[in-house]
């Protein structure tokens, strides 16, 4: 198994992989790194480069996912508002506008 995972780790295109695959590759890469350390071998240069780009990609994917979920929840909450709540919000906005207009004129 390691042969195909190894070649994948060396040549992966991040956009083609899903989050699970990225995490699996990062796990394999980190295991490799610790084995190099355990055997006091010099770590290949590509491993560091690939692990860094994996970490960056996983981080950005996770941030995107959280942002998507946050916006989804905001929209859902907006849809759950009662007419009274919507009315109160509009009145609040109107009061703010009245105040601004008074300052302008």
């Amino acid at each position, binding site marked *: 198994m390691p042969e195909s995972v190894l070649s994948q780790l060396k040549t992966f295109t991040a956009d*083609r992989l*899903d*989050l699970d695959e990225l995490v699996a590759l990062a796990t394999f890469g980190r295991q490799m790194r610790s084995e190099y350390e355990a055997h006091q071998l010099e770590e290949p240069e590509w491993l560091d480069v690939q692990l860094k780009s994996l970490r960056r990609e996983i981080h950005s994917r996770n941030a*995107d*996912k959280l942002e*998507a979920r946050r*916006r989804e929840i*905001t929209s859902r909450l*907006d849809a759950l508002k009662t007419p009274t709540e919507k009315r109160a919000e509009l009145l609040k906005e109107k009061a703010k506008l009245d105040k601004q207009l008074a300052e302008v004129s």
Partner: protein
Amino acid sequence: MAETGLSKNKLIAELTRSAHGKLNEYTPIVTQAVTQQGEFLAHLVAWNHLKGQIRDSKIALPVASLVDGQPEEFIDNALAHLAKLGPREFLRGYRFTMESKTRHRSRQKRLVHDYLAHKEANAAAWDRIMLQHRHTLKELGALSHYNFTERTREILFYRRYPTGSLFEKVAQLKDMSPTEAAGTIMQYKLPFLICLGALGKKAQDPDLVLALINRMSPTELVTNTKMLERLGVNKNPALRGAFQEALGKAASSKANVLKTSVAVDAVEDEEIKEKLRGLQDKQLAQGGVEGSWLVLADKSGSMSQAIEAARHVAATLAKMVKGKVWLTFFDTAPQTIDVTGAPLDVIQKATRYIQAGGGTSIGCGLARMLDERQEIDGIAIISDAQENEPPYFHDAYKRYTEMYGKEVPVYLYHCGSKDGTLQRLMKNASQDLQVFDLPANLDYYSLPNLVATMRTNRYSLVDEIMAVPLATLASVLPNAYRKEVTNA
């Protein structure tokens, strides 16, 4: 033993070809199959409904099977598979029965009534069907003179919607704020296409794009990628996250491999292209092909079509199989590339200087595998089969069989109209050859579908098809047909 599977194979190959809406293109071969392979055809209808990727064939096959002289079980199976279709396809099927003047007209009309009555019986599901298929249902009702219930008529024809219903929510979408509309779409799981129409230009708001992505089916996601690209799906973090999530869900869908190829070509953003290619890899990996394969591509004179088709076949196999895949271009000498796991663009780049020219020795590619002692489980040949130079394929195949003690299946993707020497020589040597005829105007997007039907055991696909049970109207529309059984 060699030729018994041929007509079955041709029938399977026919199913994988997209008719692009011209359903009557399936009629000649199905009519022929009804008389020669009636039982196989009935199981093929059932298998195609489960595994097929071409929607046209799912409609045309059962309709074209409705001919006189078939056992009642097969007719029932064909009607049952029509009843399994969604409303839009069901209407196309019914229209096709009218155009082609198929037999059993009264049963088909009754089928429409039972289909609509069955759907109408489940109120919640029926509301969603009405929401999405208003025009289809009206047309089905008009064509078959079906009497809808009062409530359905109010909604479908007079647009008078019950308070708090889905229809009312859709009508209100355009007056809501973008966030509220987005929340409503997700809360009530409103269908993507309907929302898109109801929202108009408002649909470009990021909150609404996110909600629409959330509600897209895998096929809708793939076919609308170009639109999503325009709406900034790769620029906005939240949209990017939602798109990635939706791609993850689409990866488990088998329904849209062909559409994914089209979408890759349509979009311009390289990152989105890569994401779609990743999706296609995952979809292809679900194909049922096993083992290691040798793809023999004819690069002799005037075989440009074979060269391009071979790239597509090799790329599809490379993604589907867990074993190795070798792509060998031949004229009178082989040129072999290990394409295991390689995507189409990589294969195209690696083989961009291959040009058609020279004589034809199909056997030279297999002879090379023999010399290198590479074991394979299947062979795909893309050629016009006009072999005119030694080593001949049937000789190399015989040597291969003796060396490894197994007869691996050989599939010929035949470019050309008349039989070549390959078919004749293999027939004379009592060797089996499965032939797929490639039309001159080959649709490359439908090739993966054909590749997916190849098996390392030559009879396993036929066995697989015959193992799919026939459907009955009593199981698909239980309310209507159980009543009939009881009455009888």
